[in-house]
């Protein structure tokens, strides 16, 4: 038996043992679970164990993707598969353990389903509307295995792909990836195999492999979930790619804002070096590789590949013209391939299951799956992995459950600050690189933010352009000055001081910024503005000509009033008003002094009866 087979046998045993252990509690411990309060749940579980003298095993797993149900736990007992519950709270955890472990009863409250087949009255989580239409390839292990346990990953088929690849020639590996149709998941959609081939052909004495894990788009957390939930998958993909292009050094450029992801990657790298899956002579193949982690230092533009390389070299992260492409002249002048986390995380499945399998999933032009971070005004936000070509409606309404509390969906924003807003009428658009681009949005790296009637599209445009303006590196004047000008105009419009003609000026500057910028930060920066003008022009006009924000978001145009008939006089708003401008006796209707009101929204958010109304009456009515 080879070393790999020995390890595989050991790993299978570790996994089987875990599966047959009576009493395992899996805790969803990604950043999102931590933010939702898994720490408290863990403490309560430990307290319960001590109190009941129970010997449970606690296993910290990544995010299964259903962030909407965080904090999430799965409890495995009585020879049954783990059963997921969420959201759970510290104070209800004891009761849950009582029921399941002591009384062998699975309560229905907060029950999500078995992580496996249905049994008894417990359905399978994979039949839940949130997961049923998903196709998990990249995220298949997320929330199921302990991310830092190498045995867990190997037991799920991990490193079989790398083993196969190392038995092939590098050219054969590239050929396989080409056949699979894998396209870069960072946003542009360039065929990954083609990039590898270019680099291999340009190879001299040295070449580098770089993983772009600088997930800078606000509203996107796909890469974080993968790094935190299944770091070995990325490392296997990265190693395979390095072998294919002939690199003996690889870098992972990760956002410093993801400390947990970086910590887990470091642990994973150390373990791989220990078993000989990294370092010298990997799996006895003669191929050697060392992987370095570079922590980003907070510059969005470093997601652009030439800026990222400059940053690794220790320079200001400013893009440079291409050609020469990094595959010709990259890191320290050597041929370099830069791939996104999701592209690399797709590679192990391609190698293990074959190019054909991967190519059988997805749409005509875009193969495989798309991973989206579904957030905003949606009932079930979370990480979503679907075959390419799935419609946006299916993702937002089918998986995401639509807008909560009966709200009305207005638009879906994809691609973050580089992307655009797609109106409700176009939701039947399939997600792949071409169709989104045609609609004026982009696939981007996978953020998908749902907006409802309470979202102001002008404010959204202002938000994104402020972001890109701040993050512009300043090299190209159209981007540096143009985004600033666009931001100034949008701020004026949001303040109710827009002028007729502003929309046209925005369009004109937007097209100049797009044409006159070296990199895609500037090239795509106007997208959020231009796409909202295209689909929501009437909202711009309402701001400019009526001084009215239809969504009642833009602060200077908003008024808070208390509906006397609905106010119960609980005094909560008056007590919490930071400027004490709400008057009224207990049990009597309260009134807001409009001259002193700072429009902080505290009363609106705190009122138990929703008696505080937020409206944007517009200029005319104010005069009356």
């Amino acid at each position: 038996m080879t070393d790999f087979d020995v390890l595989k046998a050991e790993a299978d045993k570790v996994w089987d043992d875990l599966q047959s252990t009576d009493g395992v509690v899996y805790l969803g411990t990604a950043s999102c679970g931590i933010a939702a309060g898994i720490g408290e749940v863990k403490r309560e579980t430990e307290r319960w164990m001590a109190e009941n003298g129970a010997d449970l095993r606690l296993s910290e797993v990544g995010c299964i993707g259903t962030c909407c149900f965080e904090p999430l736990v799965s409890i495995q007992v009585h020879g049954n598969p783990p059963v997921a519950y969420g959201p759970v709270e510290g104070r209800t955890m004891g009761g849950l353990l009582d029921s399941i472990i002591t009384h062998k009863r699975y309560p229905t409250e907060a029950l999500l389903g078995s992580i496996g087949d249905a049994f008894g009255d417990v359905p399978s989580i994979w039949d839940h509307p949130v997961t049923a239409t998903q196709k998990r390839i990249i995220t298949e292990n997320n929330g199921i295995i302990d991310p830092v346990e190498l045995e867990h990953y190997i037991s799920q088929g991990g490193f079989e792909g790398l083993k196969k690849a190392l038995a092939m020639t590098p050219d054969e590996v590239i050929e396989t990836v080409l056949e699979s149709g894998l396209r870069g998941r960072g946003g542009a959609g360039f065929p990954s195999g083609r990039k590898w081939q270019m680099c291999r052909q340009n190879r001299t004495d040295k070449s580098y492999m770089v993983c772009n894990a600088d997930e800078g788009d606000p509203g996107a957390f796909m890469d974080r979930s993968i790094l935190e939930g299944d770091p070995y998958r990325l490392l296997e993909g990265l190693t395979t790619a390095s072998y294919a292009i002939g690199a003996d050094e690889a870098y992972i450029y990760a956002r410093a804002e993801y400390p947990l992801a970086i910590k887990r990657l470091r642990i994973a790298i150390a373990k791989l070096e220990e078993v000989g899956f990294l370092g010298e002579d990997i799996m006895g193949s003669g191929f050697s590789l060392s992987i370095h982690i570079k922590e980003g230092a907070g510059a969005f533009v470093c997601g652009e590949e030439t800026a990222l390389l400059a940053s690794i070299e220790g320079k200001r992260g400013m893009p440079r013209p291409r050609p020469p492409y990094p595959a010709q002249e990259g890191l320290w002048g050597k041929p370099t391939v830069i791939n996104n986390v999701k592209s690399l995380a797709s590679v192990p499945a391609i190698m293990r299951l074959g190019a054909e399998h991967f190519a059988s999933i997805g749409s005509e032009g875009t193969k495989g799956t798309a991973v989206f971070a579904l957030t905003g005004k949606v009932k079930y936000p979370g990480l979503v992995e679907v075959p390419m070509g799935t419609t946006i409606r299916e993702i937002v309404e089918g998986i995401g459950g639509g807008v909560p509390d009966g709200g009305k969906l207005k638009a879906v924003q994809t691609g973050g600050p580089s992307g655009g807003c797609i109106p409700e009428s176009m939701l039947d658009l399939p997600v792949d690189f071409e169709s989104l681009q045609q609609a004026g949005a982009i696939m981007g790296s996978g953020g998908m933010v749902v907006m409802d009637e309470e979202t102001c599209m002008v404010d959204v445009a202002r938000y994104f352009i402020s972001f890109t303006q701040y993050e512009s590196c300043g090299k190209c004047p159209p981007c540096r000055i143009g985004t600033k000008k666009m931001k100034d105009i949008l701020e004026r419009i949001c303040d109710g001081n827009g002028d007729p003609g502003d929309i046209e000026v925005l369009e004109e500057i937007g097209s100049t910024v797009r044409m006159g910028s070296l990199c895609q930060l500037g090239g795509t920066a106007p997208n959020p503005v231009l796409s909202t003008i295209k689909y929501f022009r009437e909202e711009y006009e309402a701001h400019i000509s009526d001084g009215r924000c239809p969504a009642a978001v833009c602060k200077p145009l908003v008024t808070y009033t208390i509906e006397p008939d609905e106010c119960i006089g609980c005094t909560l708003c008056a007590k919490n008003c930071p400027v004490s401008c709400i008057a009224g006796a207990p049990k009597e209707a309260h009134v807001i002094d409009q001259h002193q009101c700072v429009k902080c929204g505290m009363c609106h958010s705190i009122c138990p009866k929703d008696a505080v109304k937020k409206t944007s009456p517009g200029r005319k009515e104010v005069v009356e």
Partner: protein
Amino acid sequence: MVTDIRKIIESFKDRKGAIIPALQAVQEAQGYISPESLVTIEDVLGISRNEAYGVATFYSQFRFSKPGEHEVKVCLGTACHVKGGAAIMDIIEDDLGVKAGGTTPDGKFTLERVACMGCCAVAPVIVVDDEIHGKMAPGTAKEIVDRTVSKGVSE
């Protein structure tokens, strides 16, 4: 302290692209990039003060004045923005009496805005001393900050 910083910087000698990791290590150790540390970098790594300062100011992670004892970050990423992050920032600015990016005069608190912690599903989010709190509303966010404030006072 001075020797510590020198020692830290020395560990980056002869490494390719060492300047950013070196600056990160300095900031980790002393909380910010002091003018003295740039002199030490020039001395040890042979990277001029101008160049090091130029690189440091490009990246938003680096700061050049001493931060407060506690750090409050308000996320204003897309999901947090759509879900009312700006109102939370307003209330905390008001509560601490300091604008985003500033430190309270008593040196207790630094308030920062961040553009996405990647916890969008539980937006809006604030981070107090590396502890992430999700599903915030102006009231609950103020409560958490106030709790830290009173803890800070009792220390």
